[in-house]
């Protein structure tokens, strides 16, 4: 008897399967659905591409903030190379390409006028001769004119703009670590309670309520921290400045608790029941089982929760923006702090589109994106491994 050709049905035009009839619509729909689903990948790439694109001139040293520069007379336009002129006029390569000679000459006239306009007292200031967007000034302490010792300063206003990003890094880390130090123990404790110790009915009510906390907009948490918490914490700890990194950190903790809680709770719940039953059968108490059996088994998941919480915390903007914003180079938790996100949010409106300040803010954004990208990758990777291990896969 002729066997039914089922599995090796002939492939028609462009891979359309021919069963009872050709279905080009099905084929087309599948391809379209596939294309649309690629949009998530496209978006991640676009975000990286376009944030980095605006920041590129900083990475390549094409921005120049020096007030006093060697003047290139307009007549000498042809004597200098294209790259020199482009850098001199602070243009991006594509802007430069689109300009004809006349426009370049006008721009050079404007530039000369601007350079001649620099006030006399700046001419002798050594700081006015340097490009403050150079990596040396972005990362290392520099002895500015009028200061006693080398200092890290972020001060993007005034004639001489100081763009040292170290105070922003310190501020971000300070606020984030305070937030995590507050949120991780609370969230993991609650996760242990809810997943291991609580009765089912309590679990069913508490879980959605903690998830609800993540539904509170961050500006609302910010208002609460600004008005209520700042006063309460000042009364308890008795420090001087009312709004500081400590208050911002705790408020930040509120925002990341739900994130850490739900991931940690998920990890603890996915530990096989057999572990718990074995421990209880051997006479361990419920607490001993949770602490010595379940928690170690779920440790990778709990670690991942903390890492993902970290990613969320360094990216949080509005809370820190509302509670504290002065950029001070200090590790003291009761001093003010300015995080990277805050800086971008507060200063982007003042920054000239395409200017050095604008570029540096985009560079900070790119660094932030890279940091959260890495922490997300680590978190997801650890969770993936952990789940596979529990399921017995390798």
């Amino acid at each position, binding site marked *: 008897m002729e066997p039914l050709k089922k599995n090796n049905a002939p492939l028609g035009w462009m891979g359309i399967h021919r069963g009872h009839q050709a279905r080009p619509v099905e084929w087309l729909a599948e391809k379209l*659905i596939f294309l649309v689903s690629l949009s998530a990948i496209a978006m991640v790439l676009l975000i990286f591409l376009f944030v980095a694109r605006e920041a590129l001139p900083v990475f390549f040293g094409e921005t120049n903030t020096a007030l006093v520069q060697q003047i290139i007379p307009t007549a000498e336009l042809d004597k200098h190379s294209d790259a020199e002129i482009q850098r001199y006029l602070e243009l991006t390569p594509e802007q430069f390409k689109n300009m004809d000679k006349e426009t370049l000459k006008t721009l050079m006239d404007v530039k000369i006028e601007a350079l001649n306009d620099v006030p006399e007292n700046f001419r002798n200031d050594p700081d006015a001769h340097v490009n403050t967007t150079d990596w040396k000034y972005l990362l290392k302490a520099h002895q500015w004119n009028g200061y006693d010792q080398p200092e890290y300063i972020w001060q993007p206003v005034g004639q001489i703009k100081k763009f040292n990003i170290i105070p922003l890094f310190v501020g971000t880390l300070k606020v984030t670590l305070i937030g995590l130090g507050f949120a991780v123990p609370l969230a993991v404790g609650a996760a242990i309670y809810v997943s291991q110790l609580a009765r089912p009915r309590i679990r069913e009510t508490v879980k959605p309520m903690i998830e609800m906390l993540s539904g509170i907009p961050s500006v609302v948490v910010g208002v609460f921290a600004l008005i209520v918490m700042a006063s309460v914490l000042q009364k308890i700890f008795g420090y001087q400045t009312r709004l500081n990194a400590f208050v911002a950190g705790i408020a930040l903790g509120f925002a990341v608790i739900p994130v850490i809680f739900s991931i940690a709770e998920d990890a603890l719940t996915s530990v096989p029941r057999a572990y718990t039953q074995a421990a209880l059968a051997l006479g361990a108490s419920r607490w001993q089982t949770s602490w010595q059996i379940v928690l170690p088994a779920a440790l990778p998941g709990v670690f991942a929760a903390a890492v993902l919480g970290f990613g969320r915390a360094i990216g949080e903007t509005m809370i820190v923006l509302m509670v504290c914003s002065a950029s001070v180079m200090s590790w003291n938790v009761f001093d003010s702090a300015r995080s990277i996100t805050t800086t971008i949010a507060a200063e982007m409106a003042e920054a000239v589109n395409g200017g050095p300040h604008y570029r540096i803010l985009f560079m900070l954004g790119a660094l932030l994106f890279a940091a959260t990208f890495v922490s997300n990758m680590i978190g997801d990777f650890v969770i993936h491994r952990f789940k596979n291990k529990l399921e017995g896969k390798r």
Partner: protein
Amino acid sequence: MNAPATKHFRTDKFDFWSFFFSGLTGLATLFILGILAAILVNVIYNGWNGLTWHFVSSIPKKDFFDAKTTGVLPMIIGTAFRVIVMTIFVIPVGVITAVYLTEYASNISIITRIIRAAVNNLAGVPSIVFGLFGLGFFINFVGKNMDNLLHNSSAVWGQPALIWASLTLAVMTLPVVIVATEESLKAIPPGLREASLALGATKLETIWRIVLPQALPGIMTGGILAVSRAAGEVAPILFTGVAYFMASLPGRLSDQFMDLGYHVFVLSTQSPNIEQTRPILYATVLVLLILTFALNIVAVIIRARVRKKLRAQS
């Protein structure tokens, strides 16, 4: 394990440390719930009196710090407008991606794993970076090029606008919609699909007529969660469309708009007299919280039902 059996095997000795540490974890849980309660009670208590019909329905003059004449109508409309435009973009893309991931893709193929990784990553990108992306991509690239082509280089689209803020938010909330839809698609019994296919329906017909209608609650949850997340976010719209003050309501997609969340920020940090603006600040916060929270609670309830269904199957 059933309760009596455990009781039987448990030692009679009272273990102090077990009791102590169990209590600590319980306290941690209570503390978190306490934070939630404190924020809600504080906002409702302080904002309740300011929440009048006049406040919700009037358009403020230039000085919106004045408690007597101010109102939040333009902010409510602005927020609603940007969220609705966002939904139009994010729901189709999110649902189609989720359909691909659950119905078509094989779980081991490399492209599926990359899509999943991208979705996870998108969910973790800081909201301010989305703002920068909106400025760098939508305004400075797409908008400027549209102006060059359509409007002879005059600035119509190449500046902050409602459409750019909405699109930025759509990119941000894409993972929310994908994850929620995927969850509800997985909760649909495979038997339903098999029955449909056995009756001669094609895969596309099965998805369109059988799977998607069943998944509707989950899709709605995703949409609602995305809306409530987007309504409360301020950072992504800071440079992409929000205005400090506008005399008129936004009418076109290229207009700027006022926004509730941003208004809360302005009232709490830029006010000339903090004590005087506090009542309007709290009333505005209450309006924002009611909008986002009401949506959130609805989403949580629907989601709990979907999860129950999922658990009943497995």
